[in-house]
């Protein structure tokens, strides 16, 4: 269910793992209250750094997506925040689809579109500065 992160994307691995977990929750592969794989078995299975897995889990807990229960493991939050997040993502999807469709109609290739988004996001990551 969880795939190996791709280091050559230039995106931190822990973020990729977080995205995968969130995606799994959105699609229902992981349900609220369900247990996630342990840090050690997951690191072993994906052959990745256990510290990175731990970091991803910590960030997910910080965002309220999962709960870390001491001694028992990591569990998907039953909180409505998760659902809201999942819903927000679901709602955003058609917005993005429409934008992409419009840009394609203007003759932009997918690669160009991707770069525009990334440049924009890079700008936004630093305190919302608009380019």
């Amino acid at each position, binding site marked *: 269910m969880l795939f190996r992160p791709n*280091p*050559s*994307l*230039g*995106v*931190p*691995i*822990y*973020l990729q793992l977080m995205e995968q977990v969130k995606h799994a929750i959105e699609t229902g592969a992981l349900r609220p209250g369900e247990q996630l794989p342990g*840090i*050690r078995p997951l*690191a*072993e299975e994906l*052959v*990745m*750094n*256990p*510290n*990175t897995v731990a*970091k991803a889990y910590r960030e997910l807990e910080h965002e309220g997506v999962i709960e870390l229960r001491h001694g028992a493991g990591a569990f998907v939050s039953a909180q409505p925040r998760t659902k809201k997040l999942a819903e927000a993502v679901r709602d955003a999807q058609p917005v993005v689809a429409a934008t992409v469709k419009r840009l394609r109609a203007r003759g932009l290739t997918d690669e160009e579109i991707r*770069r525009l988004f*990334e*440049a924009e996001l*890079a*700008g936004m990551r*630093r305190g919302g*500065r608009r*380019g």
Partner: protein
Amino acid sequence: MAESLIIETTDLHKSYDGVEALRGLTLGVPTGSIYGFLGRNGAGKTTTIKVLLGMARPSSGQARVFGLDVDNPEIRRRTGFVSEEKDLYDFMTVDEMIRFTAPFFPRWRADLEQRYLRKFELPSNRKIKALSRGTRTKLALLLALCRGAELLILDEPTSGLDPAMAEEVLQALVAHVAGEETTVFFSSHQIAEVDQIADHVAIIDRGCAVVTGALDDLRERYQRIQLVFDGDAPQGGFRAPGVVRLRRKGRMLTIMSSGGTEEIVEEASAMHPLSVEVVPVTLKEIFLETVTGEE
């Protein structure tokens, strides 16, 4: 962020017969990390490891492991080592080699010994000189992992191994680190494997550390800025700090930055480019740009 550093070098110099192998190497390995030490062949990776383990004496500068000076033999009681050549005693059998090594370490883990013997499928009675490189590597790894060591120092652990076996080795390392409180310091010139399992990295070039830091941090900080101009790309440098490399080709100017992208983009805007793109950068690109030649 005060992290305890299990390995720390400060301005380390080492010369062999008048040739400087290390020229002021400074790095710090946080306890509990998996630290990748990347560099081209001959950059000084093996020399650094030899200094850390007391096999070679530093010419100047400081190096400490566990807070102890590197000529303290106590370091070797708490460290597991695998050499680049994986060289062991050819005339001994696998079993004899294990029986030889175990008594030196009071914290030897017989449980791990059994587990790895099975997992690596090591033939107990075969002489080491008859083993394939892959099997020898696994044996060397077993000897390092079973010591109950707090630190593992590995010199190119997967060199000469086919991808499947390399993956097995990485997996064993990762599993070991997850289960035991161990720090791993490994050198490599395989960027992919450092990418995969390391959380900190140092890139060494011609005896100096040119890049050090947490891998996630580096992935966020390093970026490529691509500028396209109407005419030829303008000459001249950038005042903003963080420019690692500038490349001009016709109408394109590409800048690799290690941070402070905003300032660079501002300076670039003053040159009136047709387009400005900021693109994330992979470890491989960081490596290639920081170790190859000058411009």
